[in-house]
């Protein structure tokens, strides 16, 4: 009996190590484009400091986005983004907590490109919404690449667009995400 418990314990420990496989990055990239149709200037930014972890055993995936790290072509636009729209002092980080929908169909041991849908909670500007994001997971050796494109409605996150900029700033932001996560 004692021997059995020992074996079970070792197995349990072993399997944890074997399956609790985490992939991580701190340099994923998010770009967004919230330009209104016909606007004379682009309302777009890039952030190369997005952190993410994917747990291939549980299918949990999280993202953390430092809001002040979004870079704009125009410095003044970046100021306004942080000061007036995102209120970055109050809400310094946006994040996402989700679960990969078709975990069974993914084989992290085999190179390949797997389409997937991640369902979870997206928090921007202190407001959380449930979202379903279609994306792709590309497995290559010990790294996985996550790619996704989706749109968010600014109003859903209580980001108000004053009338005087409505001809430039759209009601939706098109977000695209790409990150190469390496085995931890």
């Amino acid at each position, binding site marked *: 009996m004692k021997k059995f418990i020992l074996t079970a314990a070792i197995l349990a420990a072993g399997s944890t190590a074997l399956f609790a496989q985490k992939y991580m990055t701190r340099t994923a990239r998010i770009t967004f484009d919230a330009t209104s149709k016909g606007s004379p200037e682009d309302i*777009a930014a*890039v952030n190369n400091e997005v952190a993410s972890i994917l747990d291939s055993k549980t299918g*949990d995936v999280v993202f953390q986005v430092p809001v002040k790290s979004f870079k704009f072509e*125009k*410095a*003044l636009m970046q100021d306004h983004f942080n*000061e*007036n729209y995102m209120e970055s002092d109050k809400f310094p980080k946006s994040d996402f*907590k989700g679960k990969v929908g078709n975990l069974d169909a993914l084989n992290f041991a085999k190179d390949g490109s797997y389409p997937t849908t991640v369902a979870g909670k997206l928090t921007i500007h202190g407001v959380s919404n449930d979202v379903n994001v279609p994306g792709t997971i590309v497995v290559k050796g010990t790294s996985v690449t996550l790619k996704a494109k989706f749109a968010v409605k600014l109003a859903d996150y209580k980001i108000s667009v004053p009338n005087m900029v409505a001809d430039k700033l759209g009601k939706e932001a098109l977000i695209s995400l790409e990150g190469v996560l390496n085995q931890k």
Partner: protein
Amino acid sequence: MRRTLLLSALFASVATVSSAQADKLLEELDDKSDKKEAVTNTFKATRIINSSTVENLAAGVLDFRILHRFGRVSDGVDNFFGFDNATTRIGLDYGVTKWLMVGLGHSTLYKSNDAFLKAKLLAQKTNGTPVTVSYFTGMSIVGDKAPVLPPGMEYYFTHRLAYSHQLLIARKFNSNLSLQLMPTLVHQNLVDSSAWSNNTFALGVGGRMKVSKRMAITAEYYYRVNNADMLNFGAKTYNSLSVGCDIETGGHVFQLFFTNSVGMNERTIVNQTTDTWEKGHLHFGFNISRVFTVVKPKEFQKGNSNW
């Protein structure tokens, strides 16, 4: 029995792990290093009203500024409350690096040209450095014809020059309130008489208080430590006081205010303010600015694969 216990223990642990898993992963992402973050947007613009703020233009940004001060409001209806006579400064400021900016300008008052340089020395950080400190230095050249001088005295080119040095010490107390102290030295090569020093020491204080996301109340005042009784071309001078508001439109900050200074460089603000609030000798004024991105940030330069 033992087997059941073990199994249930295993199950329990698995269940707990999966429910709190995402939160744990997020926690793992939190930067645990005690990174101190720089405080941003202490002020909305590079000027409070007349004074420079600790804010610099971003590297590669060119700012075309028009500063305008109308005549005395107290002139009444004859001069349309000051609108009929005004002084103006047009200038170009440029952000060389994120800590260095330079500027050039021409003012109608005394037909002066000025140039300045502003360098950020210290940046306020959350849980770190309590203040942002910048050094400002400028010079101005009076372009007017020679004033009436005592007999036998010649008006040299150097008489037209003045220099100023300022330490700008600012703190953003919270997202609404920022204050700035400005110990200032103005050296004017030619003053009215030897009764006064060529060096004026002044302590300036200024600040802004946001009243909404897009509007802020601003004010600034210079207290002269010496030369407070100085005459300027025979006229009594006063400490400069300005009160106004910043209004942010989509593209820029529009500054509207009342001030007793009609000059728009440090020499005229500190030494040559000849109007006083007490007599209602106020001037309505505004600053407008238009920024142009001359050098794009590296993320947006050609050949970068971001887009």
